[in-house]
């Protein structure tokens, strides 16, 4: 477990630099510096580690989406967010995103 846990969390912690993080949360896309890892880059790095990469990639993705904002990213938009093309390739991807937003609005 620690093996699978440390990688995504350390990848996430690496983003702690000027312009990323504090006060950002879901609105963090605007403050993300150009050299910070995007959602796509972070998830790909977690997968390339091999081993138990599915859960590790989920963990890295959740952290980076929370940091950069979960909105689907596209060029000129939130380039650090979840890529629109990836959402499109997941079955019921848009519906899942909608559920996530509703969930966060429940409380």
């Amino acid at each position, binding site marked *: *477990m*620690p*093996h*699978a*846990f*440390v*990688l*995504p*969390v*350390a*990848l*996430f*912690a*690496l*983003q*702690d*630099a*000027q*312009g*990323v*993080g*504090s*006060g*950002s*949360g*879901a609105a*963090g896309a605007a403050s993300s*510096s150009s*050299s*910070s*890892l995007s959602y796509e*880059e972070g998830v790909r*790095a977690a997968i390339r*580690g*091999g*081993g*138990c990469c*599915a*859960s*590790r990639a*989920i*963990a890295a993705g*959740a*952290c980076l989406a*929370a*940091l950069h904002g979960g909105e689907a990213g596209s060029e000129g938009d939130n380039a650090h967010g979840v890529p629109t093309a990836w959402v499109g390739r997941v079955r019921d991807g848009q519906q899942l995103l909608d559920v*996530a937003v509703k*969930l*966060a*609005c*429940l*409380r």
Partner: protein
Amino acid sequence: MLFCIFLHAYIGEALANAFDAAFGTDSEYGPIDPKDSPKPLDGPWRHGSLKGFAALRGDPKQTKKLYPACGLTSDSQADCLARAVPVAALFSGTRRDPAAAAAGSQDQPGSSSSMGSRALSDAVAAVTRVTQNTDVAVAFAQAFGALLGEVVARGSAPLQALAAAEKALLALDTRGENGEDGDSEDAADARESARQALATARTLASQEQGSGSGGAGNDQKGPSEPFLRTVLSYAAVPSLSEVTPKPIA
């Protein structure tokens, strides 16, 4: 107290039924595929803990296992991290804890207010035990939930969120001191392992930033090769003093 136990059992069983409907042997996922079945599977795929859960709930030769007995008692895999994500989203829907709001106090980044952290941790534990009924899985899921909650609810910076998540885990260990039921020693040990893993990640990231490789403060995209090698070389949580690069065999 008794009411809380029943409430958790009720919610846990409701969750188990929802998992059954979505991933059970009567769902579109079908019967459990044999271990030696040809890969890739021709159809949807369940990960290990879901397969174990479906087998425990769907075996017609056995009495249906109710929550939390439906969770595997030997499964400490990272699947539990995924369980914590929607729970963190739900509990982070408000940026401040109700008690803190009533008292007029502000939740600050990294403050890890105890009430919200505890409610989140309890919910993460309940959800995790549906498929993974182990203290290790629960502890790591709680650590991850606390981390995410810090970022989403308080806008904490990553290193700040890691430190706050460590504090949240430590705060869970005080339950027994307030007349509430304390956790088992195994549960406390598991939380300490999770806390050490958070500390390890924090140290590794700080070292990487200090070395000028990777990180957001450098033009290089992504983590350095030595950083990834170090992170991947972990087979167990070392003490902080042992955080040194190890070659991959």
